[in-house]
């Protein structure tokens, strides 16, 4: 009884579908070819009545597999939300009638398109089973926060406020991080005129008073194992003992280190106690204890201070930071105002800038406030700071175009933030795997200077969060900033990008929310971002596996480990359900309950392939469901025409595309294939980070297949398509139709 499958088809004739298409023919195809045991038409399937009809069939007739032929699978998702069955959808509205002209001469090809989408949806649902959800883990509400600075403390407080127990690990002996030594912070409230209290002491007190937060000082993580909902974390604590924690989700908030300007000889940082970094300035101001700020060398109150901006930043030179801090100028304004406050209005404060950047809410107002209070802003390049009892700052005035100098008794260098992250896990892997001696030596050199691990992940793909650039953790900084490439581990604060305390606090709140979501989703066996709520997960047929390791290597999220016998070991809650492993597996043994080599492979095989002399080409389009497919839907809403030869199948990620689909399609007579994924590379838009990039690499091998079949290379095109490519996406398909027209039909039609 349990495995008895009952297939039911439903065809909506609303939204003009019934007027444009022959619904009884569609129904006949669904039952005769698609083998639906029943097939019903409804004039508005998404209405309460239509939905009830389906529900009744599920309840009374016991339908287990349903095929809905109506609008795009992206439309009416709330109405067609049948969680207790397997379901496929044929896109007759956005996919057919809206992209084809309503004219008698187009009637035949339009109907053929619809017929095929029915065949495809029937084939798809036949190979699906209802996802049951991962049961590898249970609800574990414990949140681990790594790092006790502003970011970590905020994350801990936020998570605890939401009612989740927090374990806060700090490697030093005190909470507060860098900010604990700050005199004041950049203002966060209107009128943004004066530096404000950092609030660090209150945060520490709040944490100490909070029963839900356990703080581990002088502690570090020696091992992290498991997955969201069942992380097992070993802590080496103060006393030298090891504590094991069972954790639902993790927030890494390890912050930053300050760039060391010692090697920039022109600034003589190492040669004078009165040439200091911006962070040392904070300490001086704090130590002044409300009195005037004093020179480190002789303890005299300072009367003239030069702030040298952009030191060792935004530079291509070796050993300097290739990026800009972003907030250094706000810090300089803040510190100049310390001097106006503590040392009097007459204290001469000059900020040497080239491009003054004051981003954020405080920005412009705070800058004006500095000017109002007579901080001098000089557009100039400082060439040298000469040490001595009075320091001489030599600079080129960029407005007056002259070389000149000023005397100061304290010079503050604006040095940048360096992310405090663990080593790049892929550098380790590359080192282990490469056989090229030169390459190995190069990687060795990199690894030798790599920082120690922070998380000590016991993952196949390395010990720490993957990097994007310059050591910052990889995430999509616009679309999904707190996500990392390790599911259930969220990055927040300056380890993601340079930022100030306020931004770090916002970041921490976001990451705390993501961590809570991840723990809850894992508890219910559901996926995290971007397929939130997806209950399917990948599994593999062990008998067929050749232990080739493609899946364990290519998974963008390091979800798959290798067991003792070298078989892949899927950690379901770490998996984002992108299908990249499925696309990678050369023997096609990886599948999801509702997405597999067959659910797509059978769709493309069930398209009715016209004989060669019919002169009706067929173009297969595999479109990423995150960007390309929505772009095509949008184009359809705009009334853009799509060539009637196209048959479009959405895929979870281009990374899930198996070469076997391409080979099958070419062998069964498709004349052209268009693959659409998201933008790859450093500025990727791929929702699965590396999926599109991996697919592009994989598809570079299609050339061999084409050659072996003696087919023209232009029959297969791989594109990067953004959700905004509403005009371009349909054009790429139409271009392929033109290409086929030019080079002729495929000889593989039988």
């Amino acid at each position, binding site marked *: 009884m349990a495995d008895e499958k009952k297939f039911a088809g439903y065809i909506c004739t609303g939204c003009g579908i019934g007027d444009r298409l022959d619904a009884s023919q569609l129904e006949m195809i669904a039952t005769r070819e698609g083998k639906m045991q029943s097939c019903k038409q409804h004039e508005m399937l998404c209405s309460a009545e239509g939905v009830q009809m389906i529900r009744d069939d599920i309840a009374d007739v016991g339908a287990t597999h349903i095929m809905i032929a109506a609008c795009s699978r992206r439309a009416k998702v709330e109405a067609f939300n049948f969680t207790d069955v397997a379901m496929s959808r044929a896109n007759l509205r956005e996919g057919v009638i809206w992209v084809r002209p309503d004219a008698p001469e187009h009637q035949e090809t339009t109907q053929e398109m619809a017929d095929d989408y029915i065949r495809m949806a029937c084939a798809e649902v036949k190979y699906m089973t209802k996802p049951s959800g991962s049961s590898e883990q249970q609800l574990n509400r414990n949140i681990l926060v790594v790092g006790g600075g502003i970011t970590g403390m905020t994350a801990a407080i936020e998570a605890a406020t939401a009612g989740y127990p927090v374990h806060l690990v700090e490697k030093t002996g005190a909470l507060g991080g860098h900010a604990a030594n700050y005199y004041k912070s950049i203002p966060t409230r209107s009128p943004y005129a004066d530096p404000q209290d950092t609030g660090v002491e209150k945060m520490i007190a709040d944490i100490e008073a909070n029963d839900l937060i356990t703080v581990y000082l002088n502690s570090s993580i020696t091992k992290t194992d498991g997955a969201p909902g069942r992380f097992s974390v070993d802590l080496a604590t103060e006393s030298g003992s090891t504590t094991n924690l069972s954790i639902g989700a993790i927030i890494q908030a390890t912050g930053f280190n300050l760039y060391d300007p010692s090697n920039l000889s022109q600034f003589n940082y190492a040669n004078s106690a009165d040439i200091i970094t911006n962070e040392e300035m904070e300490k001086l101001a704090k130590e002044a204890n409300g009195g005037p700020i004093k020179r480190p060398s002789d303890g005299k109150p300072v009367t003239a201070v030069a702030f040298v901006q952009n030191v060792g930043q935004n530079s291509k030179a070796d050993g300097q930071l290739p990026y800009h801090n972003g907030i250094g100028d706000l810090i300089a304004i803040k510190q100049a105002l310390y001097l106006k406050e503590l040392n009097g209005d007459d204290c001469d404060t000059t900020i040497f800038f080239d491009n003054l950047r004051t981003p954020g809410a405080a920005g412009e107002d705070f800058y004006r406030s500095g000017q109002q209070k007579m901080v*001098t802003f000089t*557009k100039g390049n400082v060439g040298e700071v000469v040490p001595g009892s009075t320091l001489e700052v030599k600079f080129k*005035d960029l407005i007056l175009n002259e070389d000149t100098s000023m005397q100061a008794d304290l010079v503050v260098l604006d040095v940048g933030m360096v992310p405090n992250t663990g080593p790049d896990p892929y550098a380790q892997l590359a080192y282990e795997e490469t056989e090229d001696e030169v390459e190995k030596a190069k990687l060795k050199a990199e690894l030798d200077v790599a920082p120690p691990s922070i998380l000590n992940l016991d993952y196949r793909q390395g010990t720490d969060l993957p990097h994007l650039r310059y050591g910052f953790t990889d995430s999509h900084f616009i679309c999904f900033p707190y996500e990392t490439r390790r599911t259930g581990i969220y990055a927040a604060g300056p380890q993601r990008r340079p930022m100030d305390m306020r931004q770090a606090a916002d970041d921490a709140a976001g990451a705390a929310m993501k961590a809570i979501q991840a723990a809850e989703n894992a508890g219910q066996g559901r996926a995290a971002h971007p397929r939130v709520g997806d209950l399917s997960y990948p599994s593999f047929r062990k008998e067929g596996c050749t232990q080739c390791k493609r899946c364990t290597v290519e998974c963008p999220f390091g979800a798959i480990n290798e067991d003792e016998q070298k078989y892949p070991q899927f950690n379901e809650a770490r998996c984002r359900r992108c299908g990249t492993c499925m696309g990678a597996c050369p023997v096609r043994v990886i599948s999801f309950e509702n997405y597999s080599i067959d659910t797509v492979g059978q769709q493309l095989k069930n398209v009715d392939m016209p004989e060669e002399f019919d002169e009706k080409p067929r173009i297969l389009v595999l479109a990423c469901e995150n960007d390309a497919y929505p772009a095509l839907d949008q184009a359809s809403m705009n009334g853009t025409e799509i060539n009637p030869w196209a048959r479009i199948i959405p895929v979870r990620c281009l990374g899930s595309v198996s070469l076997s689909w391409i080979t099958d399609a070419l062998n069964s007579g498709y004349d052209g294939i268009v693959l659409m994924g998201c933008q790859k590379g450093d500025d990727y838009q791929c929702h699965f980070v590396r999926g599109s990039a991996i697919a592009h690499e994989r598809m570079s091998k299609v050339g061999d297949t084409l050659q072996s079949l003696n087919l023209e290379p232009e029959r297969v095109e791989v594109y990067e398509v953004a959700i905004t490519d509403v005009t371009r996406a349909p054009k790429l398909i139409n271009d392929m139709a033109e290409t086929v027209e030019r080079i002729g039909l495929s000889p593989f039609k039988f």
Partner: protein
Amino acid sequence: MSDLNKVMIEKYRTSFLREVEANVEEGEWVKMCMQCGVCAGSCPLGKHWDHPPQEIFMMIRAGKRDEVLTSDSMWMCTSCYNCIARCPRGLPITHIMHGLAVYSKRLGLAPQKQPTAEFSQIFWDNLMKKGRVNELKLGLSLYFKDGFGQGVKNAMANQKLGQNMMKAKRMNPMEFFGGHGVKDTSGLQKMIKKAQEIEDAKVQGKG
């Protein structure tokens, strides 16, 4: 060096910016310039000057007192207001330019033989005689400011203009003999003199 100039140098030794703030009309705005250069790019004349407004403001902040006060630049401003209309920081640039000119003149630092400065003096003297501008005399003094020969040349060159102005009743040749004025000329002169004293005292910190 004028006495006032000496006094000022002494008083504001450390900061020319503060001197400007205290003594130049709208001078307290100078510190708010963010050096964007929009004024310099907008000024139709600035590129012909030694220092467009942006540079003048930077020089004030850099303490270049002599260079600023003896500069010819602020005298060249035609009050077109382009810069004011465009300055993103809302600086009343035109007014500051004129304020600087007035201050430099008061200190005796304004450049000699600067045509706008000379014209301003002629205008002032003309006005102070009767409390009304005598346009005929103003024109003639301007023509003859560089001596008799040059004056005749100037007058000849503008002969047609003069005739047309008379025809249109824009200029009255009878003004040459005295001309119109306010009722109480000496009262006006006294008033102005007093105002000047108050102003000078204020500048010197005695008022």
